[in-house]
């Protein structure tokens, strides 16, 4: 019995989500080297080709903040209250380590793909 196209589609979507999950964290941390609020962060990520919906981004920001990687502050801008995020000193250290890890994984993967 061969799997149907629906099943293949579902498997692909699940694997894509898994693949994106780690990358999103890295992308968000990298973008927050500069202070941003939620909407501009989403826009910056989308402009670079990494769409992220509100329901994914805000819980992720909360989690990273509770892990001590981000600091946030409510501030008024353009007559509206906005929450601004930026990397904490711990976040900067961890981002550096994560980027090294990412580059190592990336080069290993490229090597594997070339061999295949």
């Amino acid at each position: 019995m061969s799997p149907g196209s629906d099943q293949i589609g579902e498997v692909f979507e699940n694997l894509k989500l898994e693949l994106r999950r780690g990358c999103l964290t890295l992308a968000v941390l990298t973008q927050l080297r500069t202070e941003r609020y939620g909407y501009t962060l989403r826009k910056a990520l989308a402009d670079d080709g990494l769409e992220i919906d509100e329901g994914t981004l805000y819980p992720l920001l909360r989690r990273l903040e509770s892990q001590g990687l981000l600091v946030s502050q409510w501030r008024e801008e353009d007559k509206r209250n906005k929450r601004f995020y930026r990397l904490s000193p711990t976040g900067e250290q961890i981002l550096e380590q994560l980027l090294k890890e990412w580059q190592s994984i990336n080069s290993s993967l490229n090597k594997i793909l070339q061999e295949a």
Partner: protein
Amino acid sequence: MSTSSRSPNPIDLVDRYLQAVRFWLPKNRRQDDLLAELGEDLHSQIDAKEEELGHPLDQAEVSEILKRCGSPMVVASRMGPQRHLIGPTLFPIYLFVLKMVVLWILVPVFIFIVGPVNLANANGDWSSAILNTMGGLWSGALIAAANITLVFAILERTKALAHHECKWDPAKLPPLAKTERKTSLVQTVCELGFQVFALVWLLLIPQHPFMILGPAAGFLKATPLVHAFYLPVVLLWMFSVARSASILAKPEWTWLPLASQLFQSIATLTILNFFLHAVTQTPTGMFPFVVLADSVRDSVHYIKIAAVVNVSILISAIGAWIGLSIATIVQTWQLLRHIRKNRSISHQAISAQAR
């Protein structure tokens, strides 16, 4: 753009949307913060769109932004904390305990103890006895499942088994399971030969009672109760012959030996149940299985022999009932294990194909 689709204040929609999201979120201050941020994001999206279009958005355009964001319930489920009654660490143990209690304790107890007791007390009303048993099993399973779930939910919340993972010892792992032995051709042929021989023997008994009673056939004869159960026993034995022949003809049907064996055991058990129940209805002072032939009716010596034969048959029937009950539980477990194993192989094959 029609003026009818315009609302005096389409931004109200955002507040209504946030109110709907709030309904599905747990009520705490952290969620208020999250909602304020979501609201700000939506307002920023509206601002950006208005800047792009060069006019204030109408209700339809605001609705479009909200639709893209997702239904309030879905957004709340993504934004809220991950909630589960029993987490992934405890879930396999929970499922194991649930299966053990419901499948291996409750179901056998209701099939082999509660069911027969209900049938015995039903005074011939079997349908209500079966319904009572099924109802009892259903309530019992629900109560057991609820209690087990409650206990595991408490264990999950209190993290009572959090350090269990550190305590396991590789040396205490169970030994490797033996590979499943397949039924050999010689064994199946021998079984079939024996069953055909036994069937012929069984069919000859009514005309030649000597073949079962031996010399006692001269002074003992079967009661109407034994005659009544003769046909079901013959049919059961015929099924057994057909079963062995099918296994011989279709060895690739690996489920057949287990499934048919289980069916045969359940059928035998059912006949035995009725048989033993009928024995309890025998009037006091009467032998249930064999009685004396008319020619020796008053002989004290033969009455003693008849009594011993009747007691022996009764003890054998009770022993067979107990043995079959245990065998049925084991066979059910073997069949379920076989089905689960086959399903796992099928899933692996599908995954391999998908790759």
